[in-house]
């Protein structure tokens, strides 16, 4: 039986959307200058706004570029605008507006955008570039929560933080729900990784949905007496360098896992930290350099998980490969 750390109590799979909605309502209740900026895609927590503060809803329509620049101005006047949409448009289409209108002046805009390799919606919506696209932009904090509890807590945390934030949400519409991982009293801290499971032989650093697969693989490997550490890296920028270096020192093998392109995502962020501080055998698991397509999940199978090799078995193979590298190099311990 795998033993997890404090604040971890693995439950059933559940979509994070309800957590986001709850977090938005709590943050809106606490901050009366928080505004909901809609892009004609509904809104998490809209029920709270409709009931309590309908005048704080700004419906921008299908005009994401305008929404981003409007949000910048609202922030300039002291509001906290929360934009919500699909990342391919909210980030991809409004990329230049985020870079020009929002970031240079560090306007307090929060961007909640859905993306990931999985959904039934096809190449357009299955956006796997959002983190790469935003990581390179100065002044932006990037958060990618791993379960429903962390989703809820991260909304409040980014609202309390003053400055622009990109909150990465799961794609929905056929993306697999992550496990409920954390307990209600889990203390989410912006910029800090959380070690879900201790271990000595290798470390899986996962983000977003892939934390779920990392937990599953830790259970699989436990049966084979392979003891892996699992780290939830929910803040991708600024990344928790100390946690990465510590894991490399103590386990000597690092595997990263993300529901995103392997180019420019979590894997490369971790690789940069390792290369500069403590070169360590590493395997990056994510979407290879290709676009996604539609796929569905049934009881028997998850088409896209199989296609992209992002399941627990694939991750287990990556862990073994990394441990083999470590042994070959004679790295310590």
């Amino acid at each position: 039986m795998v033993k997890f750390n404090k604040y971890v109590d693995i439950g059933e799979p559940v979509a994070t959307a309800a957590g986001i909605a709850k977090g938005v309502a709590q943050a809106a209740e606490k901050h009366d200058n928080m505004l909901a900026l809609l892009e004609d895609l509904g809104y998490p927590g809209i029920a709270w706004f409709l009931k309590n503060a309908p005048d704080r809803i700004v419906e921008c329509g299908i005009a994401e570029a305008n929404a981003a620049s409007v949000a910048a101005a609202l922030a300039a006047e002291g509001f906290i605008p929360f934009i919500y949409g699909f990342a391919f448009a909210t980030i991809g289409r409004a990329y230049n507006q985020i870079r020009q209108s929002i970031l240079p002046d560090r306007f307090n805009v929060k961007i909640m955008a859905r993306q990931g390799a999985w959904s039934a919606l096809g190449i357009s919506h299955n956006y796997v570039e959002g983190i790469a696209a935003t990581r390179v932009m100065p002044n932006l904090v990037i958060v990618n929560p791993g379960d429903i509890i962390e989703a809820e807590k991260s909304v409040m945390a980014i609202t309390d933080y003053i400055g622009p934030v990109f909150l990465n949400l799961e794609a929905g519409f056929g993306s697999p729900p992550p496990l409920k991982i954390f307990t209600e009293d889990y203390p989410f801290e912006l910029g800090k990784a959380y070690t879900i499971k201790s271990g000595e032989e290798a470390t899986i650093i996962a983000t977003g949905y892939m934390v779920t697969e990392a937990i599953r693989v830790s259970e699989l490997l436990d049966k084979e007496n392979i003891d892996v550490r699992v780290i939830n890296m929910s803040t991708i920028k600024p990344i928790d360098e100390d946690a990465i270096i510590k894991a490399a020192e103590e386990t000597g093998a690092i595997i990263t896992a993300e529901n995103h392109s392997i180019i420019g995502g979590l894997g490369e962020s971790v690789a940069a930290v390792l290369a500069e501080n403590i070169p360590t055998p590493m395997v990056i698991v994510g979407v290879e350099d290709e676009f996604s397509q539609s796929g569905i999940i049934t009881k028997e199978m998850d088409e896209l998980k199989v296609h992209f090799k992002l399941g627990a078995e694939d991750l287990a193979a990556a862990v073994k490969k990394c441990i083999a590298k470590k042994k070959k190099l004679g790295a310590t311990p």
Partner: protein
Amino acid sequence: MTHSEELIKELGEKADVVRKNIISIFEGSGAGHVGGTMSVVEIVTALYFHHMKLDPENYDWPERDRLILSKAHSCEAIYAILAEIGWIPKEKLSTYYRFGSPLQGHADRWCTPGIEYSGGSLGQGLSFAAGLCLAEKLKTKKTPPSEFAKKYMTKYITKYNPTYRVYCILGDGECHEGQVWEAAMFATKYRLDNLIAIVDYNKYCIDGPTTEILPIEPFVDKWKAFGWWVTEIDGHNIRQLVDVLDLTNNLYGDGRPKCIIAHTVKGHGISKWEESHSHHSRGDEVAEGLEEGRIKYG
């Protein structure tokens, strides 16, 4: 309303001073966006030295009117004005394009007191201006009446003056950008009657005449179709400028954003630059223009 001859004359002299400062800026840098900067001089002179509500002692006064220079490459004209107001020191005028200077290549809110918006990537300023206007409505909770209210509930409608107004200067070529029209729809939807767009219609882009690059006409009809109050003026005629700007004072509460299409000449005031319709000037062209400018504006 009629404005006195003295006022018009005084503002004309101010415009000359602004051009003089612009010449100083170009002398320091040896290059600049001469065309669009010279075409916008009378517009910004009328705004800053006559129409806009500002506190010269405090550029950050919350109730100030805001100027969003969406065509941020014409920031040389704003720098010339800010130096005259005293928000940037005059001796800094020669530091345009230099590292750490308040005179950045494109207007930058972080670097320059009095600059409201960091621009350079065209087409975004009108959205930003609309956002500022929406913020004013949200803060004051005074939404202008809807068309329905104006028609059926007139006795309940009271006119009001907004806490601040927002002026957004756009280029004609900039209106190629689709986002301008997203913002135009948005402003109409939220009845942002404290938003005044001023198009510096100088007829030229970098590659040639706007009508050939990507025609924007019928331009007035476009704004009208988007639900805006529109008027056309000569953007170098100070009387027309102050008349139309002050006229908008009486229009708040009508629920309509406003667009002033100011017909201008690229490089206005320097014959060499007017002839070439030059967007960006360097080398001999700027040197010859500067020589003329020094003689003309002192």
